[in-house]
């Protein structure tokens, strides 16, 4: 049985300019100890998918219209507050893109790192502090005992992200959701944080959902990848298979537009046009207006994910019918 099973999740935002279908029928599973990468451009719904599971969607304007997210037998989208609280923040932890805005600037690190322990496990005082020091040491913060009493502004960006990770890990979660944790960091610091997440994932045998827009980051870290576009999953598969043999035209285009994959001197491959306006209804495939292979059918028929090879699914109608 998978650790997390999301089925037909739809999260819409009801704004003055219409209904924005941020996540529009997303289904996926995460196994125990597995690393799943969710790749997409801004506005593709990759963060909203995870925010929906964690109950972080501002309501209104947001609303979870349908779907379920079953974590170890409990549906996170339809459960009592008590049941949810026992899972969110304890068995599922989350780290965010910007470690400066996700730490409270008024509180010492010590108070913030032990907070999950106090809330979920009722541990406080000396014991909590001991656990906090151990957690900071595990994420590679030297001199943790004295650093614990510092404020967030006394840490650099990379160190703050380490503190966030320590905070997330202190309750020994089974699933860690990492929402672009390295996007705001410098490349050499990004390399440190990626190594750290990889090591911790292995030692704790923890499942990780890694949200990113960078295919390069995914390639070294994730077992499986799913690519999102305009609120839907367009392709999913084993990392190696997906990189070697991308099927959906969007995945192919995304891979082709990475500068390091292209010969120097030539123009870079570009995807023409822009991501769609999600407040307008999309009768067909959302990528059709930008797709070089689109035919009449693509504009009228909403494609569904279909498995093409073992574990490798795509939602392109033309790939499914064997035309591409």
């Amino acid at each position, binding site marked *: 049985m998978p650790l997390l099973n999301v089925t037909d999740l739809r999260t819409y935002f009801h704004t003055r300019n219409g209904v924005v279908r941020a996540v529009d029928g997303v289904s996926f599973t995460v196994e125990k100890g597995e690393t799943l990468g969710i790749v997409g451009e801004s506005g593709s719904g990759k963060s909203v998918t995870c925010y929906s599971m964690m109950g972080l969607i501002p309501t209104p304007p947001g609303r979870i219209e349908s779907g379920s997210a079953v974590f170890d037998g409990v549906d996170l989208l339809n459960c009592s507050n008590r049941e949810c609280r026992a899972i969110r923040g304890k068995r599922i932890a989350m780290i965010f893109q910007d470690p400066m805005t996700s730490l409270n600037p008024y509180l010492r690190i010590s108070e913030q790192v032990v907070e999950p322990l106090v809330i979920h496990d009722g541990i406080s005082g000396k014991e909590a502090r001991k656990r906090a020091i151990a957690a900071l040491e595990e994420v590679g913060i030297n001199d943790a005992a004295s650093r614990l009493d510092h404020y967030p502004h006394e840490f650099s960006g990379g160190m703050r992200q380490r503190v966030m990770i320590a905070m997330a890990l202190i309750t020994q979660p089974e699933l860690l959701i990492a929402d672009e944790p390295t996007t705001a960091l*410098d*490349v050499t610091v990004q*390399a440190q944080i990626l190594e750290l997440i990889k090591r911790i994932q292995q030692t704790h045998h923890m499942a990780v959902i890694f949200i990113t827009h*960078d295919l390069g980051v995914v390639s070294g870290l994730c077992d499986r990848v799913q690519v999102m576009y305009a609120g839907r999953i367009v392709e999913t598969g084993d*990392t190696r298979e997906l990189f070697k043999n991308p099927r959906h035209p969007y995945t192919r285009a*995304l891979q082709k*537009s990475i*500068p390091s994959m292209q010969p120097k001197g030539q123009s870079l491959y570009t995807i023409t046009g822009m*991501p769609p306006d999600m407040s307008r209804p999309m009768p067909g495939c959302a990528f059709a207006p930008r797709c070089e292979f689109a035919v009449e059918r693509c504009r009228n028929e909403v494609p569904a994910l279909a498995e093409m090879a073992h574990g490798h699914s795509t939602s392109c109608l033309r790939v499914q019918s064997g035309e591409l």
Partner: protein
Amino acid sequence: MPTTDTILELEDVKTHFPVERGFIFRRRVGTVKAVDGVSLTLRKGEVLGLVGESGCGKSTLARTIMHLVPVTGGRVRLDGKNLADSSSDEMSAVRLRLQLVFQDPYASLNPRMNVHDAIAEPMIVHKVVPKDRITARVAEIMTLVGLAPRFMKKYPHEFSGGQRQRIAIARALALEPEVIIADEPVSALDVSIQAQILNLLASLTRKMGLSLIFIAHDLSVVKHISDRVAVMYLGKIVELGPAVDVIERPKHPYTRALVSAIPVPDPDIERSRKRIVLPGDPPSPLNPPAGCAFHPRCPFVQERCKAAVPPLVATGPGREAACVRLDEI
């Protein structure tokens, strides 16, 4: 194609900011050496990539070249003329020839100015185009950067990030400059949009014979667009040379680590290669380490690295690096 004519020359340029304490009796308590002795040349038609992590001084160097921050030492020469000697009238003429494009197109455009006014503003200020020709010229430039002239009366909020960056580029092009300094022009954009802007910049430099200083932290982007690349660390250039050569065969330990830190979008290569992970963070420019600024993080550090600042020395055709152990590592 780059020619051998130098258009812009930096000689030992320094930008130091005083750090002061006290309200009435202000006293100097330190100096931030944001740019500390940079020498560079930019040839006509050349694209020079400038890479480094945040805080290494690359943006300050851009502002120093534009004289937007005071130059505390060294010379910036445009066509052989030292800009520091220029009167304010001459300086305004210099700004016609040097233009800057900023990173964040959400912050660099005035939200209350429509596209026409934003692009026309530099032409009106510098009186380079007769009044009755301005609208026609704006339309021309918009077409050049890939924006339909019919959007002329729209405001920045009606455009996406990529389109805004096109407006910012159009604004820089309005004065037909010879040198454009682009400060992380694609960092705020999505991958698919990045490629569009990079292609635009590359084609503009070719078509208009522009020289471009392209500042970025992403080496793969720099490798693609630049002829030469300069790597900065804590206010100094540590390596300089032809872009492909430097990135494929880096010599300085910092450049090696920087290249190695880029994730490779191929699972087989990415999982089998050995990544150099640097310990720690870049040091503070307020209190830089003695000797080579990179020594606290360098895997090849020796006693003598801590003694003196290594100079940039020639290491091959067109290549320079600032490390005393180049032959040994």
